[in-house]
């Protein structure tokens, strides 16, 4: 996967909770990426086996919600993306003090 602003932001958002369930709408807010960008990225990650998806139908009266979870392969791959991004000047802002990436690194 190409190292772009969007892919790094999504990687940071996903790796903030590597074992949790991630939802598209929440991801757009957490990663700060438009939905027109995030869904294609999630689809690529699904195709690459980095993510698995499922449907959460627990809310009564509402249509089920699709969630994404990271696979082991995905955790390793996204870890690599983040490690490379940390050394890349283009993505410095995501790892500045107070930014989501900085919290991730120190966690």
């Amino acid at each position, binding site marked *: 996967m190409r190292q772009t602003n969007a892919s790094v932001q999504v990687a940071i958002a996903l790796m903030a909770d590597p074992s949790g369930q991630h939802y*598209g709408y929440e991801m757009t807010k957490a990663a700060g990426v438009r939905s027109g960008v995030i869904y294609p990225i999630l689809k690529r990650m699904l195709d690459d086996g980095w993510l698995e998806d499922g449907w959460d139908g627990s809310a009564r009266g509402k*249509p*089920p919600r699709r969630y994404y979870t990271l696979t082991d392969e995905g955790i390793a791959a996204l870890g690599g993306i983040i490690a490379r991004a940390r050394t890349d000047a283009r993505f410095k802002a995501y790892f500045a003090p107070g930014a989501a990436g900085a919290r991730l690194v120190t966690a």
Partner: protein
Amino acid sequence: MTAAVALAAQRHWWAILLIVVGVFCVLPGFALRLMLLAYPDDDPRKAELRGAFARTPIFRRLFWVFAQLELCCFEGLPTRISQRRDRRTEAMARDALDDRAEEPEEAFVPLMEELWLNPDSSEIDAVATTETVAIIVAGKPEQMTVKQAQRYRENVRELEEGYENRVRELAHERQQSGLLVTPVFGGVSLSGVSNLSASAKAANGLAVAADANVTAMTSDVWNISYRASGTTMTLDNFSGVWRWDQAANFSKSEQPSRGHSLGRPGPASGERRHILPGH
């Protein structure tokens, strides 16, 4: 805001209510449903967006929905268009094979489908001969390439049994390669007619023949007559006489033919039939 206050002051509160309900409750859902039509029925994104919409705060829905327009245009529409094209190509290939199966003892030229389906068959030899028959000049056929082979009942049975599993893949490949042709004339595939105009192709019941590398197989040799637009092309060097009479089938005539001629009238029986629609 001031307009809303002014309206309220004029006791037009019901108008404000209608506008708010329309803009924030009805319009987003309606717009989303329209956009979801762009996705194929089995696309999980459809249900995903529906689920996300239900959980979006009501006053954000309008903006959220229009943010999905980009996704719908670049993800949903291309998928649906490609799926529809696949289905159409598959139906065309299936029709062509069905047509072929109807007359198992007719002269036979292996189509790409048939070579695909039966690649190991010793009875289908795609590279045995290539014979130039006519070319197209100014939209009229003057010389073409015919590939031919013999057809055996066994082949047809094998094809009938086998193609169900492979025609989908084939159709997809054909679409990818832009090769939309050939199952023409119920037994003979004409090729190398890329300079034939679209209208001429349609007029002659031809589809595009994309590959110039046309091959024919014969253990016997056949005389092929092709009649289009009132002109008959005859290919000699073949023992046996086969004619296509615009009825999309070949029939073996009683008389062997010699000599290469253009413009000789062919049999007039049979009805015209376009095997591949849309050309």
